[in-house]
């Protein structure tokens, strides 16, 4: 945790070690990455920027409206516009743009990119050729599957794939922005405004807190194991060890829930959840909410072809 560098933000820099990492090293790295990330996230929510100054409820509803609206848009130009809009908001909220873009695009190529990649080739979907890759000649086939005469990247495919990726990126940007600019406990409390019962708001914020307790438990187990490992044992033995540790964590967390419950009871908790209401809507919150909601409406109207651009 000591090497946290807020300036650059989290990155998987630990890849400098050459060669394959054991599952132990990978777990420890993953946990350090997770902790750093949470730490950096906290630091953003304390800056004095545009989004940080808004009421969490107004922010939550605005962002949700924009996400729902964005997910209906199928026009690339509008999506790029929406994405740039979120970049601008990120900038005004004093979030480093480089960090923000990296954070959003870190996972997208892995999941969505993998999903849409086959779409661009005419093997799966016919379309007008854009770039020809291989000329196979007539009658080519892969095993029992007949292949077209030549394989090329189609215009329609690239277009559809780009729209798909942009839409994912825009929605992820919005939610990352919400999480980065709101202190977690506030964010959970603000969920009351979209109708989540008090009980689950409390559960959510407690779960968030105990994730870190349990994560530390896990990291201690792996560090302890690493410290005692001279030579790796057989794979099944190692897997058995992991299974045991997960089971142990389960026992510990149930046990801890018992203790937490007693601690809560002794402080006067009787099963009824009370949450201090400390939010206050100001004019700027109403303005921001109105802007976001009207923008969402416009996006939906455009996507339904009611407004033409």
């Amino acid at each position, binding site marked *: 945790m000591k090497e946290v560098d807020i300036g650059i933000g989290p990155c998987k820099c630990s890849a400098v070690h050459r060669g*394959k990492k*054991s*599952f132990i090293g*990978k*777990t420890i790295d*993953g*946990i350090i990455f*997770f902790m750093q990330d*949470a730490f950096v*996230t906290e630091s953003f929510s304390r800056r004095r920027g545009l989004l940080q100054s808004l009421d969490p409820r107004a922010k939550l509803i605005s962002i949700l409206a924009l996400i729902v609206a964005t*997910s209906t848009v*199928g026009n690339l130009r509008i999506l790029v516009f929406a994405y740039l809009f979120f970049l601008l908001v990120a900038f005004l909220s004093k979030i480093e743009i480089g960090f923000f873009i990296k954070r*959003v695009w870190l996972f997208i190529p892995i999941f969505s990119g993998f999903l*849409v990649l086959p779409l661009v080739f005419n093997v*799966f979907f016919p379309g007008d050729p854009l770039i020809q890759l291989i000329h196979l000649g007539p009658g080519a086939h892969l095993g029992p599957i007949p292949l077209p005469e030549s394989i090329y990247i189609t215009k*329609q495919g690239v277009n*559809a*794939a780009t729209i*798909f990726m942009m839409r994912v990126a825009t*929605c*992820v940007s919005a*939610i990352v922005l919400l999480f980065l600019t709101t202190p977690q406990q506030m*964010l959970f409390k603000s969920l009351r405004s979209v109708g989540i*019962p008090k*009980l*689950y708001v*409390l*559960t*959510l914020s*407690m*779960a968030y807190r*105990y*994730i870190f307790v*349990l*994560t530390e438990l*896990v990291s201690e187990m792996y560090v302890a194991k690493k410290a005692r490992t001279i030579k790796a044992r057989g*794979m099944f033995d*190692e*897997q058995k060890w*992991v*299974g*045991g540790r*997960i*089971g*142990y*964590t*389960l*026992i510990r*967390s*149930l*046990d801890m*829930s*018992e203790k*937490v*419950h007693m601690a*809560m*009871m002794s402080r006067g908790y*009787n*099963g009824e*959840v009370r949450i201090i209401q400390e939010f206050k809507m100001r004019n700027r919150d109403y303005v921001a909410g109105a802007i976001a909601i009207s923008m969402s409406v416009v996006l939906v109207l455009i996507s339904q072809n009611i407004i033409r651009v």
Partner: protein
Amino acid sequence: MIPIWIYAGKKLSTLGSRKVPFLALAAAFAFVIMMFNLPVPGGSTGHAVGGAIIGIVLGPWAAVITISVALALQALMFGDGGITTYATNCFNMAVLIPFIGYYAYNFISGKTEITSSRRVIAAAIAGWVSLTAAATWAGFILGLQFILYKDANGLPLYMPYPLSVTVPAMFLEHAFAFSFLEALVTGLIFAYLQRTDPSLFYGEKSESKKSKTKKAAPV
């Protein structure tokens, strides 16, 4: 999905004031379970989903809330799992996996002793069946999107592949790869719990009277 959550909440009201800490810690566990890397053949590593074991140990209704909370945290923290798809996701991972896992486990283990090795196998099979079924269902939903949402030119708006691609793709890769890992991990966790604290499983039906003895093993 909302009626399921409300019903699950009602089901758990027997927990009384214990409800919040119990669900919170269990959700934290459901979140943390994916941090455990374990070695798999080929020098790579993988991690488990853990829905089945949570369903077996906590009961399926508690698992519904627990996993939903963990998924909500994931969606908020990483933008991962999505907001607009949250309900579908929850149905898949917080309802299908624990319920199928729970019933598969109960069906196979029957009336055997808590400590019998048949239960370990039952847990492993429950892990395999539940993940495979949920993955196939996810494939079905994705394929359905392809049919429902298309633009004017017939190009898909959201999901680029039809049912005939998504269902086999999700089924095959899970049935022959990921689900085996899930089965292995579920079985191993179960075997450990059985050895260490079998009292966990006696109160399967009523989570409320969890007066279990503390027999936690040393780290």
